[in-house]
């Protein structure tokens, strides 16, 4: 399965390409975890804000497919969900058997947010610019659950 890998200070996030419509450069500032552009009706979800690291510079936006995974249902401009991320460094092919599901105590720690993550992986991912090329863990994201969770958190006033 192919993923876009975005590099945070201490970890990568992996977004499955099957859920992605397009990748865009993002130059505007971001002040909130969730913001809506009233002109385009696009909704922007800032992962650095969700992860309590708002100082991570946002460089890319991942435009999610409107119908979730698989073929895009319709081709309309605007009204998209866009994940804002630090640099998307590369795309990578990672077999499902190399991804450890979140179990036990990790599920307890993340509680209701655990649905955001589909798994975790250590091996084989190096980031050359930080910590002398140290291996950093990869957190695999379920984009639909992420959007749902962030909207719920916003509704509850938690972000």
């Amino acid at each position, binding site marked *: 399965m192919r993923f876009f890998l975005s590099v945070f200070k201490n970890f990568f996030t992996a977004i499955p390409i099957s859920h992605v419509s397009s990748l865009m450069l993002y130059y505007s500032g971001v002040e909130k975890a969730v913001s809506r552009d009233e002109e385009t009706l696009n909704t922007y979800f800032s992962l650095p804000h969700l992860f309590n690291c708002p100082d991570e510079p946002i460089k890319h936006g991942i435009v999610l497919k409107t119908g979730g995974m698989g073929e895009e249902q319709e081709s309309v401009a605007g009204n998209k969900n866009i994940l804002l991320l630090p640099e998307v460094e590369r795309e990578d092919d990672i077999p499902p058997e190399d991804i450890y599901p979140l179990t036990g105590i990790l599920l*307890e720690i*993340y509680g209701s947010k655990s649905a955001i993550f589909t798994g975790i992986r*250590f091996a084989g991912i190096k980031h050359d610019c930080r910590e002398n090329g140290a291996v950093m*863990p990869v957190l695999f994201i379920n984009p639909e659950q992420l959007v749902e969770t962030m909207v719920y958190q916003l509704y509850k006033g938690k972000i």
Partner: protein
Amino acid sequence: MVSRENTGAVDEKYLIFSVLDKLYALPSKYVGEIVVFNTVYPLPLMPDYVMGIINRYSVPYVLFDTGVLLFKEPAHRGKMLVIKEDIDRIAFLIDDIADITDIMKTHLSEIEQDTESCGIADVISESFKWNNDDVFVLDIGRIINRVTKEAAG
């Protein structure tokens, strides 16, 4: 002849260790390995008493900062006590190992759980005397309960 088992005086092996110069213990049957403090990978959305995850043979284990868990003060980065995988993928940051010793059940004093606050009694269940010092037994079940409670809150 009455066996020791029938009197409730069965020995259990405990691993005694120090955290911020105080003594704690775990039944040694729960302990998988003890390793020198190494790379910890912080993850987002973790409570303050979780330092992050550690890599044990490519499997992620959650590393608790036992000092923050008990006293809200970071522990020395000495060793990591890794719990057996069949219990949960948990490790505890500790100063050092003090001893491994047999303790009779009759020498254990129970500590009641504090239901109101997230204090020390939320994570320890028993204590015993060892070399004139008090040793507190960490209760992994209570620790997981506390994590669950805080995540729900």
